[in-house]
C-alpha cells in the first residue's frame, strides 16, 4: 500500500468532517420519516359523518401473516350507529409485538379503515400493554399507550419524535402540528429540540 492510497483514503475521511451529518440526534431531534413509512395502525373515520370506516369484517385478521389481529363484530343500533351499514367492530385488537408492519391488513381492508400510520415509538413495560384496542388506534388518538399514560400523569401533551408528511390514506390524521412537514422538505433547522421532549424522556 503506497502513500498515495493512504492520502486518498484520508482525504475522503477528512472531507466528510466538514459535511452535515446524516444521523440525527434522536430523540432530542425529531426523526425524518418518509410519507409511506409503516408504523402503528390508525383506524380512520368517514369524513363528514364521523362514522367508523371499519365494518368488522375480519379480512385484516385473515390477511395478517403474523396472526396479530383479533376482531369481534356486532350489529349496529340503527339509531346510533358506529359505522355505516349493519355491522361494526365491537372489539378490534392488534398485538403490536406480533405485528410485523407488513401492511397486508391495509391492503385487505375493503373500506380503507385500517391504515398503517407513522408512529413507531411503541415501547412499553408489560406484554399486555402491547395489545392495542380500538380506542388506542382510532383516528385522533396520538401516541403509544405509554406515551399517553405519561402525558396523562404529567399533564403535558403527547409529542411525537418524528416528522412526516401525512399521506392521504390516513384520513383525518394530524401528527403534532408543530412537527408536521407539508412539503416533505426537512425543517429540522427551524425546529430545535423540543423542550417537552425532555419531559417525555424522563
Amino acid at each position: 500500500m503506497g502513500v498515495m492510497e493512504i492520502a486518498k483514503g484520508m482525504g475522503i475521511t477528512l472531507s466528510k468532517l466538514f459535511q452535515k451529518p446524516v444521523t440525527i440526534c434522536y430523540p432530542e431531534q425529531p426523526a425524518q420519516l418518509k410519507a409511506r413509512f409503516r408504523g402503528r395502525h390508525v383506524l380512520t373515520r368517514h369524513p363528514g359523518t364521523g362514522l367508523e370506516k371499519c365494518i368488522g369484517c375480519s379480512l385484516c385478521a385473515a390477511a395478517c401473516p403474523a396472526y396479530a389481529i383479533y376482531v369481534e363484530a356486532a350489529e349496529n343500533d340503527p339509531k346510533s350507529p358506529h359505522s355505516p351499514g349493519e355491522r361494526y367492530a365491537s372489539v378490534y385488537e392488534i398485538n403490536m409485538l406480533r405485528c410485523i408492519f407488513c401492511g397486508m391488513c391495509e391492503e385487505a381492508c375493503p373500506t380503507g379503515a385500517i391504515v398503517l400510520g407513522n408512529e413507531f415509538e411503541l415501547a412499553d413495560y408489560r406484554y399486555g400493554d402491547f395489545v392495542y384496542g380500538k380506542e388506542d388506534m382510532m383516528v385522533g388518538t396520538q401516541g403509544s399507550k405509554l406515551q399517553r399514560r405519561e402525558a396523562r400523569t404529567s399533564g403535558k401533551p403527547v409529542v411525537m419524535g418524528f416528522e412526516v408528511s401525512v399521506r392521504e390514506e390516513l384520513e383525518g390524521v394530524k401528527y403534532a402540528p408543530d412537527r408536521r412537514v407539508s412539503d416533505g422538505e426537512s425543517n429540522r433547522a427551524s425546529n430545535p429540540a423540543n423542550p417537552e421532549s425532555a419531559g417525555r424522556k424522563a
Partner: protein
Amino acid sequence: MKVTVDGRTIEVPTGTSAIDAVFAAGLDVPYFCSQPYLSPIGACRMCLVEAGSPRKGPDGTLILDEKTGQPKIFWFPKPQASCTLMASEGMVIVSQSASVKKAQAGMMEFTLINHPLDCPTCDKGGACELQDRAYEYGYGDSRFEFDRRHADKHYNLSENVVLDQERCIHCKRCVRYFEEVPGEEVLDFIERGSYTFIDSAEEGLPSNFSGNITDICPVGALLDNVSRFRGRNWEYDHTATVCTACSVGCSITVDARNGQLERIQGRENYQVNQTWLCDGGRFGHTWLRHERITTPMIREGGTRAGAWVPATWDEAIRLIRGKLGEISSKNIGLYSHADITLEEGLALERFAAQLGTDSVDHAPRYSSASTLVPPTLLEVSQADFVLVLGADVHEEAPVLALRLEEMLKGGLLPARYEHGTAIADLRMPERVVRQRHKLVVFSSKSNLLHGKAGLAAEISGASALHDLLAGSAAFADIFKSLEAAQKPIVILGAEVACLGRAVLQEAETLVQKYNAKLLVLPAASNSSGLSHLQLVPRGKGSSLQAMQVGAALVSRLEQVPADFAGFLMVHDTHLTEAATRADVFLPAVSSYEKRGTFINLEGRALTLRGAAIDAGESVDLMGVIGALGDALNLKPEIRGVRSAQREFQKRLNIDLSSLPDEGQIINWSGTSSAATFSAATSSVHSSVTTMWKPNMLRGKNVVPQQARELFVGGDD
C-alpha cells in the same frame, strides 16, 4: 346407460339427471337452486350445458351420421339447464366448452344484477355458494351499471332467522324446503319479477325446522340470527359431531371460535337426518356460554350454607376423601343424566360394581325398554303404514317427523352416486300429494302430526293401544290397513312408554300380530344405548327419586329429592337447582366437548367428537369417576374412552373408535339385556317433552312458545 360428458363415456343408472352425469364424470357445473333433498326446478338457470342425443328413425334404428357412420347427435338448439334435463342413452353433454362458459358467465351476470356487494359484512362470506361460483364462473365484471334494488336488509323472519332481502337470488330453495320437507307452507315468494322477496304471513315462521333454510340458502339472504356476526366462516373451528339434544342423533357441525361455541349447522347423514336439524338442536346452544362454571367449587366454611368458592381439583378431591371416608362405599349413589356417552355409561356401570353400590341410575328413563329390534329411520320413511300412539313426534324426536313426512310423500329418497347424494333427482317432484291414509295418530293432546294424518284423534295412546288389542270394531279400518301393509311401523311416544312394562307388552303383542316393527321413542338422547348397561337401581331406596344414600354424585340432573341430606357432589356445567344444595361442585363438559359414542333411537352408534370449546377444568363423567376413585383410593376399571371401547370390542365385537360416518346399527343380542329394567321404577319427571330442553332456555331472552307452556307455565 352410457352417457358421454366432454369426451368421457361413463355408465350411469337410468333416471340420472344431466347435472349428476357431469359430476359423475368428475367435472363441475355451477348450480344454486338444486339441493339433493329437494325437487329440481331449474330456477337459477346456472347449470347450463350443451346437450344432444341420438334419435331413432321411423324404422326404429338410430339415425347415423352419413360421414362417420356413427349415430348422429341431435343437439338442443340452446344450452339446457342440466338439473332438469334427464340423461338418456347415448346422450352427449358438453359442460366445458367456451359457449357453455359464456352462457354460465352471462347467467352469473344476471344473478348478480341486484346482489349487493357486501360480502365483507355478510355472515355467509367465505362459505357462500354465490361467492365461490362468481369467482369460478363469473366475468368478474358487470355491464349493468344501473342502481341495484334496495330492500330491507334486516328483516327478522323469526327470532332465530334473519332475512336480507337484497341478497336473495330467488333460487326458491327455502320455499320448496318448507313445502317438501316439513310440509308447512309458511314461507313463499311475495310480489313478482325483480321485486320478488320471500316472506311469511304466519308470525315468526311457526315450524320446528325453520333453521334449515339458513343452511340451504346459497347466499347470505337467510342467516342464523343466533350466530349473527359472531365470527367469519374461516375463523370457526369446525367439528363434525352428533347432536345429543334428542334421541335422533342428527349429524352436526359445531363451530367454535376463541373457545366459545358460536354456531351449529346440519351435516349430511343420509341414514339419519339427511341434512336437516330441528330448531332446538340448532339454536339451543347459547345456554352453554352464559354463566358457565369451569372450575371445581367448594363451600366456604365447609357447610352447605357457605358461599361457593372456586377450588382446585386437588382441594375438591381432598374434601371428598374426607367426607367419603366416613361412608361405606355401598352407601354411595351415582346418578347421571341419560345423555352421557356409551363410554361414560360403561365407566359408571363398572365403577358402581367396584363400589358394590346398588344406587346407580340415569334419568330420564322409562321403567322398561322394548327388546324388539327397532326400525331404522330409512325404514320409517319407506313404511307403508305408520301408527303413532301417544307421541308428539315433532317435539320428542323432531327429525323423525321429517321422516314421517317423507313416508307420506311415498318414501322416495334421492339416488346416491360416487360423488354423493344426487344433486338433482328428477323423480322428486314438487307438491307431492300426501298419502295421508298411511298415517294414523292417537295421542291425548292434539299435535302437529294430527293435521297430517289420515286418521287422528285426541285419545290417550294407552287406551287406543288397549282397544286395538281388544279388536275394537271402531278400529276396523286400522286393522285392515295393518293387515294389508307390507312394512307397517308402530311408534310409541312418552305418553305410553312411561306407563311401564304391561303397556309395552301390549304394544309388542300388537306389532308381532301384524308383523310390524316397534319404535319406542327413548326418554332421553342416549337412553337406547344406556338401556343395555347395568345402570338401574337394584335395591330399595336406591332410585333417583328416593336417593337414600349417604353420599351421592349427581351428574347434570336438575333436581335431587328434597329430603336428601347426605353428602352431595354435583357435576354440572352451571349452578343448577341441584347444585344450590351441593357440598362440592365439579365442572362438567357439555356433549359438544365430549369424545365417545352415542346410540340413537334406531340403535345406531354414532361418534361424538369434542369441539374446540374452552371448558377450563371441566371433565366428563369418566373424569369425575377418576376423581372419586382417587378420593376412595380405588382405581376405576374404565378410565378413558379407549379402555371403554376395548371393553365394547369384547362385548359387542365392534370397534367404536372407527365407526363409519353414517354410524352403524349395533346388534346387542348376546349382551346383558334390558330385562334388568323390569324391577326398576321409571325416572321420568314428566311424560311431556319439547324440542327445547330445559337447559337450552338458560340465558335466553325469549322463551320459545312450546317450551313456555311446559316450563314457564303457559297462558292457561
